[in-house]
């Protein structure tokens, strides 16, 4: 994390309020004194801790929602989406912002394949993902982690997450990007105490950012370290927000809640490739419908040497690594 935690601003000192007793009648003086004392106490309460207690600062208004997404009626969803769209259009000065709620289609189960023989470790997928999914820039949140692996070893402990080379690929290493593996048996969903994260019919594991309590049980349970927590309020590039949003995907997130890769739900459900697939300069990334026998991904799985990360854990990832 780059920036040190922000320091609390010095609480505004309570302004001295003079208790100047009026000279006239006693009863009135008592009355006034009591009022002034009350006012002083009130002023002290409002002045002193305002910096910390100001509720909209602790919890922003947009994340106040009493219903879980799947419990909302279509009318409630429409109403909520309209409210959020208006709010975000004003905040980000962008009239193009729309928040889709496209549901999963029948007969679709998304799968992903990545050619580690081709990957050059350029991290363009990471950059594309950050822009597409409105990931926080301070602190930096990235859903894709590219590991620089030692040749001749699959040991993740020998991998380097923070490699910096003039040119990639480095001849002594190979590269293995890791992101949410969209498990068929996702441990994160199993452990979530409030059903705030769940698997959609098309296999995508999503989070209701308005329902997550931020216990981070899912982050501890994920064997692929694919989930990210908003340790503080996210910040975005000025003017860099992606206006094509999905309610369960790349809409702005909140402090204290979880987020993760959704196979670019706002794109995939609209019939487009994910941002990382489009950004890959060497065509190492493949994406498609596992239920369609004619799809590219099915053919790859059938013809290439395929493996899945930590397959022995029984999580059944729908993210396949392959090499030619």
């Amino acid at each position, binding site marked *: 994390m780059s920036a040190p935690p922000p320091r609390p601003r010095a609480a505004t000192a309570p302004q001295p309020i003079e208790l100047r007793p009026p000279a006239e009648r006693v009863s009135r003086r008592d009355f006034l004194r009591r009022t002034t004392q009350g006012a002083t106490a009130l002023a002290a309460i409002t002045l002193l801790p305002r910096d910390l207690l100001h509720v909209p600062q602790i919890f922003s208004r947009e994340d106040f929602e009493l219903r879980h997404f799947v419990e909302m009626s279509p009318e409630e969803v429409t109403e909520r989406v309209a409210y959020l769209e208006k709010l975000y259009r004003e905040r980000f000065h962008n009239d193009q912002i729309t928040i889709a709620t496209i549901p999963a289609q029948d007969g679709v189960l998304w799968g992903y394949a990545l050619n580690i023989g081709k990957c050059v470790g350029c991290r363009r997928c990471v950059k594309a993902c950050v822009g597409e999914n409105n990931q926080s820039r301070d*602190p930096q949140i990235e859903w894709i982690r590219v590991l620089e692996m030692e040749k001749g070893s699959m040991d993740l402990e020998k991998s380097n997450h923070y490699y910096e080379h003039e040119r990639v690929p480095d001849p002594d290493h190979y590269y293995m990007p890791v992101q949410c593996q969209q498990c068929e048996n996702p441990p994160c969903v199993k*452990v979530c*105490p*409030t059903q705030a994260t769940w698997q959609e019919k098309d296999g995508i594991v999503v989070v209701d950012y308005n329902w997550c*309590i931020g216990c981070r049980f899912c982050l*501890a349970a994920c064997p692929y370290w694919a989930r990210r927590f908003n340790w503080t309020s996210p910040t975005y590039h000025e003017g860099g927000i992606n206006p094509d949003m999905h309610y369960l995907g790349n809409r702005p997130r909140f402090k204290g809640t979880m987020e993760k890769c959704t196979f670019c739900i706002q794109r995939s459900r609209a019939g487009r490739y994910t941002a990382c697939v489009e950004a890959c300069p060497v065509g190492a990334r493949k994406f498609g419908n596992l239920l369609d026998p004619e799809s590219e991904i099915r053919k790859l799985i059938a013809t290439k040497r395929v493996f899945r990360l930590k397959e022995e854990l029984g999580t059944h990832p729908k993210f396949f690594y392959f090499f030619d």
Partner: protein
Amino acid sequence: MKVLTFLAASIRIALTGSRRYYAWLLALLSITAVGFYYYLYQLRYGLFVTGLRDQVVWGSYIANFTFLVGVAAAAVMIVIPAYLYGYKDFKPVTLLGEMLASSALIMCIIYVMCDMGRPDRAWHLLPFIGRPNFPSSLLTWDVLVLCGYLFINMFIPGYMLYSRYHHREPNKKILLPFTYLSIPWAVSIHTVTAFIYCGMVSRPIWNTALMAPRFLATAFAAGPALIIIVVQIVRRYTPYGSPGDKFEIPDATLFRIANIVLVAMLISLFFTACEIFTVFYSASSHQAPLEYLYFGLHGHGILRPYIWLALMAMVIATILLMVPRTRKNLVTLNAACILLFAGIWTEKGMGLILPAFIPSPLGEVAEYWPSNPEVVISISIWALGALIFTMLAKIAIQIEVGGTTHPEEGHH
């Protein structure tokens, strides 16, 4: 109505006392207030102000939570001898044990709330109004068993004191079922807490069936050790448990509790040895976290000195408890209890939680150290726990020993 007068009297008792009592309350309250200020700071800026990050997601709060669940469960080690084996001299200790359990449980709940990113949404965990992921998520089980155990441990002493306050004999048919229920329930709270950790395939060091037994063994050592210390403090500053009192707690009773501590401690050390052998001999994927803990990994090893100190403290405490002469001497017994308590707090707190995150599932070694706000908040919750225990004990002692009863009913 009678319950209300009892509650009002209890609050009155808890809020009145000697100068020393007020000074003690004020001291604890000040520490709590500082912690509360830092908690507001944490709410405002998020958990970013802690030392936690995506690599190490749980730290000081969850470590203290885990340890305190054990302290709460340990009350059962007093209840079992008192009610199943009929050790009469244990009965006055049960009251303190139950109040200690209640205080520890309240601390547990506060620690969990402090660890939450969104405490304002804690109600999502509750049945009917929220959407608890029951029975799949162990955390929902934990909410259930912790609340249940808190209720039992508030109800039993509460009902006894209520009866005494209103000049009645407590109904054994109400009291005994709850007392017996508290025994398996105590085991359940620590088992469920252990299952939270050992059910995760992502963290090999936790993914062992030894977790729950080890939790119970350490709990049954640390909890009664704390009770031994607390009994002596109560005996010294209040009439409760003093020689000649109806509720006398003689030294002999403390030595008997020390026997329980010793057995639990030996089992616990045995479990630690089993774990160390299995992990290091087989040199499996479990090894890296324990290697980090005991020897350091890739030049990182903040915990190394602490875990060795903790192990040493536990071994010294065990020896002190094993030798009859040092066990039956209050000075050496207290030394053993303090060493053991600190040792288990380290081993089972940070020593259990942190290595699971180091290295991360993708092999990254990122260390954690609690930030200042986190340390202040953690300490202040201990102060708050002491405050709660003090007030609960004050109420109990005033009614049981001080003879504070309902003023009018008393004349009959």
